[in-house]
């Protein structure tokens, strides 16, 4: 996880004709460690107007939700070791997809409460933006994934991968859902060009303006865990996850995930930021109808072909 920051800074450095961190350790590999240490030893200011309980709690909620969501991503097929079924991930739930969508939407509480409890106006605006953005794009995310579930006939992530391992990856069967998912995933994780909640040039730092030290680090880690989760989910749902020839499962998932992570960084280096109203209009007036149409079309096609 920590190496996501290193990866991002190196890649974005290359894209921006500079080097990125390269002084701490070989190729800057110890940079995340140094950053973490620095944040550990940093004074953690709690503003006088901040809420005493919610202010420290908010980053913890964010991180917890991000970590918990990651649990259902399968790294490989379920195997039997000594008669006990060992899932290929941390857990293989029958309702894995529902669990993932549910848990990851808890993360928005962290952002909203963090923004509100700071007692600063920039934080409040950032928090409100985060709330509006995340809930709007969660719908799109949910609808895009429902279409895939419709094709797969299961909510278990392992089942979804199994369905693709024997046939076509769902990116071919569900291209519209994939694009919807991609846009929604970038927006869900508050990454550029949808990084409005923390738009540094408008809101200074958005919902985490007042946070410092480890509390800031929690928000920061949560964001990157979320990016990894949505990348892994994209690989799982649309690109057959761990299945692939020659290499063992986790390697394939990692390679596919890395491609998505690179895409995230690439987008950040290339695109300017949308404006709040444009963001909402895109979600509610363009993507939502599109997602519904895609779902209905999928339902009709599935009904006809089966």
């Amino acid at each position, binding site marked *: 996880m920590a190496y996501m920051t290193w990866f991002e800074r190196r890649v974005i450095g290359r*894209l*921006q*004709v*500079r080097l990125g961190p390269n002084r701490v350790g070989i190729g800057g590999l110890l940079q995340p460690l140094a950053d973490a240490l620095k944040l550990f030893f940093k004074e953690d200011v709690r503003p006088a107007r901040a809420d005493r309980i919610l202010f420290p709690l908010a980053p913890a909620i964010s991180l917890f939700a991000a970590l918990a969501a990651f649990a259902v991503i399968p790294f490989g097929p379920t195997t039997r070791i000594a008669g006990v079924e060992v899932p290929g991930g941390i857990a293989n739930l029958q309702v894995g997809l529902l669990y993932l969508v549910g848990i990851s939407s808890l993360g928005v509480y962290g952002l909203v409460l963090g923004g509100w409890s700071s007692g600063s*106006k*920039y934080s*409040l*605006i950032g928090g409100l*933006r985060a709330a509006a953005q995340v809930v709007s794009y969660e719908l799109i995310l949910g609808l895009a994934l429902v279409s895939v579930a419709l094709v797969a006939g299961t909510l278990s992530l392992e089942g979804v991968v199994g369905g693709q391992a024997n046939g076509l990856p769902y990116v071919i069967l569900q291209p519209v859902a994939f694009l919807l998912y991609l846009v929604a995933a970038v927006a869900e994780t508050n990454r*550029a*060009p949808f*990084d*409005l909640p923390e*738009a*540094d*040039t*408008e*809101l*200074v730092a958005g919902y985490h303006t007042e946070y410092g030290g480890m509390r800031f680090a929690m928000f920061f880690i949560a964001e990157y865990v979320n990016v990894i989760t949505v990348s892994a989910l994209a690989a799982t749902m649309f690109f057959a996850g761990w299945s692939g020839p020659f290499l063992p499962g986790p390697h394939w998932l990692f390679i596919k995930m890395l491609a998505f992570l690179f895409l995230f960084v690439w987008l*950040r*280096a*290339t*695109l*300017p*930021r*949308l*404006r*709040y*109203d*444009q963001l909402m209009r895109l979600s509610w007036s363009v993507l939502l109808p599109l997602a519904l149409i895609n779902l209905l079309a999928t339902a009709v096609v599935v009904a006809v072909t089966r």
Partner: protein
Amino acid sequence: MATDLEQARQSIGGLSVESVTETGEGRRDMVVNMGPQHPSTHGVLRVVLDLQGENIVGTDVQIGYLHRGIEKLSEARTYTQVIPLTDRTDYTAAMTGNQGLCVAVERLMELEVPPRGRYIRTMIAELQRLASHLIWLGTHAMDIGAATVFLYCFRERERILDFFEAFSGARLTYSYYRVGGVAGDAPPGILQQIYEFTNYFVDRLAENEELLTGNDIWLARTQGVGIISAEEAVAIGLTGPSLRGSGLAYDIRKAEPYEAYADMDFEIPVFPDGDVFARYRVRIEEMKQSVRIIRQCIEHMPDGPVNVQDSRVTPPKREVAMTHMESMINHFMWNIHSFPTPKGEVYSAIESPKGELGYYIVSDGSNKPYRLRIRPPSFCNLQALPLLVRGQMIADVVACIGSIDIVLGEVDR
């Protein structure tokens, strides 16, 4: 009195105070201070925003955080000593700051700079325009979220700063212009390098444009945002690229040519829409025109002296001063007393990268200005900000600030 005020409002194009700040206690939810410590107010500008949700219902621009009293300080300095102060007004375009003062003093003294001096000054001014516009493009793009353009722009600007370093020895505060010429002739071989740079620059500019002009998000963020009509722009005193983005082709380089601009073949880009995108297009096209001017300067660079051949104004060269007694005395006296200017007053304006940079000098016949007043383009352009952001959203404020290209060193002086 009330009628006078009414007339005054009429005379500034019918703008009423209410139309600028529609502040109503019942209408706003929140008052937010944007600045002076804010990442995208381009320095220490403070904008007090009355917000209703994300919408702006009122703005109050507050300045003065960077006031250093440059105009007053100038009164105790000789004209040559004022030049370093002008570096510190618009520090993103220190060369044109120098140039504005020197042109004004030359007009006061009715001096004629020799052709080579004029050509070098023109070329340097246009290079400075490129450097200044590059900073503008980079920061403007970054304000809207395109961070990569910022770094690309600084890479190109670095090359220009290298040239300036070769000319003046400094990379930010050049003090290269002198009354009656420049501090020194162009170093050997540099003109060729600059010419090669222009070729490189045109390619790089196209690259940056590709990232922005054709980008849907960029268009959505800039088109139809921060609109100011030509009448309003004139009423508020908007000049430079910001004015030409409203469709008025007023450029001092064409209107009252100074330096070598009369000999140059170039166009004034004008875009009529008056929005952020129009101002963006103007500056991008202006950079291409600047490249044309630089190339013409280099191609037709005359030989000869770069300074006025007048021992009162130009001190003798060091080699001469060290070998001839009279020259040495002359050099000494020049450094002690500088040169007097004829009694009178002059207002002279040049086209700085930001707009009309005017210097108003009152001389009592001594070697120091009796009063020196700078008409900074940033200050006047900043007045347009409340007009630009009416009815817009928070995110548009930074786009609008970026689009009028202000430098707080020049606003506050």
